[in-house]
């Protein structure tokens, strides 16, 4: 196993870099999109609500691989060039944001209705009441589920391997086929994934404790 670290160090670092970049981009954008989707569903407009539901149900219920393959293979045929990393990251963001939207929505709904009414009765707009009163409470409630989702997101970034995104799993496949040492190759990237996900898990636990 040590051999793989020493022989393929630079290849693994490249993989780690792409995995990390994809995870970070996805984390930021899927959090934003997920929150916006959750909030839009609270609006009175039936059409907006319907559109949000369609988005969420579509991306939540299709395997990630299908979404990413679709982006990777269909978009360049009819629209514009898109490389594997971009297609994978966009696909992962679309997919993850659907889950985050559901998590945030459940968080908002578990905040008492009186909180929103209290805020609105002082003249705050809907968005102000959401931003200053409801969302901070909703986020606190959903931190454990969000933490899970974030860890899943890092692991799901391995989808890049299927569209030549040069991430950790892609490198593992390449190393495995070069060395014929499949077990150790995957073990090494398993440990590298742990290095990425464990600090995040700890941080989410810390946040949970700090806020309660």
């Amino acid at each position, binding site marked *: *196993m040590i051999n793989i670290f020493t022989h393929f160090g630079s290849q693994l670092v490249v993989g780690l870099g792409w995995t990390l970049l994809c995870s970070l981009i996805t984390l930021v954008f899927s959090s934003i999109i997920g929150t916006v989707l959750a909030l839009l569903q609270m609006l009175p407009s039936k059409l907006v609500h319907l559109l949000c539901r369609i988005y969420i149900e579509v991306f939540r219920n299709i395997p990630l691989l299908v979404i990413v393959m679709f982006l*990777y*293979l269909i978009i360049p*045929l009819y629209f514009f060039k898109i490389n*594997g990393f971009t297609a994978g990251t966009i696909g992962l963001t679309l997919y993850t944001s659907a889950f985050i939207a559901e998590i945030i929505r459940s968080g908002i709904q578990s905040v008492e209705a009186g909180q929103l009414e209290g805020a609105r009765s002082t003249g705050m707009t809907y968005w102000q009441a959401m931003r200053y009163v409801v969302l901070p409470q909703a986020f606190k409630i959903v931190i454990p589920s969000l933490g899970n989702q974030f860890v899943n997101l890092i692991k799901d970034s391995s989808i890049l391997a*299927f*569209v030549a995104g040069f991430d950790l799993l892609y490198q593992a496949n390449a190393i*495995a086929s070069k060395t*014929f040492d499949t077990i150790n190759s995957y073990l090494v990237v*398993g440990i590298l994934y742990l290095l990425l996900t464990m600090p995040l898990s700890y941080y989410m636990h810390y946040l949970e404790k700090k806020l309660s």
Partner: protein
Amino acid sequence: MKKKFWLIPVLFCMLFLSGCRQKVADQAVLKNAQSSKTITWGVEADMKLFSLIDVRDDVHKGFEIDLAKAITKQILGPSGQAKFVTATAQSRIPLLKNGNVDAVIATMSITPERKKVIDFSNSYFDAGESLLVPVRSSIKNVHDLNGKTVIGIVGDNSSEVVKKFAPKAKVIGMQNYGQAVSALKSHQGDALVSDNGVLYGLAVENPSLVVTGGTFTKEPYGIAINKQQKPFERAVNRAITQLQHSGEYNHLIKKWFGQVPGFNYKEMYQQ
């Protein structure tokens, strides 16, 4: 933090496990095969003409399948059974080394790197690297690949071979041939590099793609067998020779490659 010390033994266990190899593969394959009247073959699932699972009846079909059946009967007699296990580029060598399969017949070129880990039978197909490109592509041979994006299969040695002929080519690895062909059609790459036999199979299925430039390497396919299995290896080699002498081999070549446009199957004839 104290609580997390359990992780260290877990990691150590993982290290240890990776050090241990299953010893099943050390048993005598030929003796086992003769007593069970069965040889288990690792084969591919998505290799048109060589080994493709027919979705209608879930049965592997192709040149390699027929050849494996013929070799099995040659070694074990008419009652010998060939059993097929689907393997991928990533799993075929582990499956063999763990003893899950007795041999792998899966468009594997005989290479020195692979020979460090496993043994090969004599060649059963004269393969070589070639290029699959869209019909109106400007790429005529391997030297045109400089500055282009080339699609290979993760686990194939194609990418390194391409780099030798066209150092400025960018190689992206796909998981299997289905995805690789789709990627080529979606212009994710300019050419798909792989063995000629495989590429002809893909070209038959996809009229918008053609094989171009002939083969630029000689990488014959061999049947992968575990090391320390010399008796079995000899039996396989003997079987191949017998099939080539009897004309059965040529019959199979014609059966599977006779219809491929642009492919002179008679060049593949033995004896």
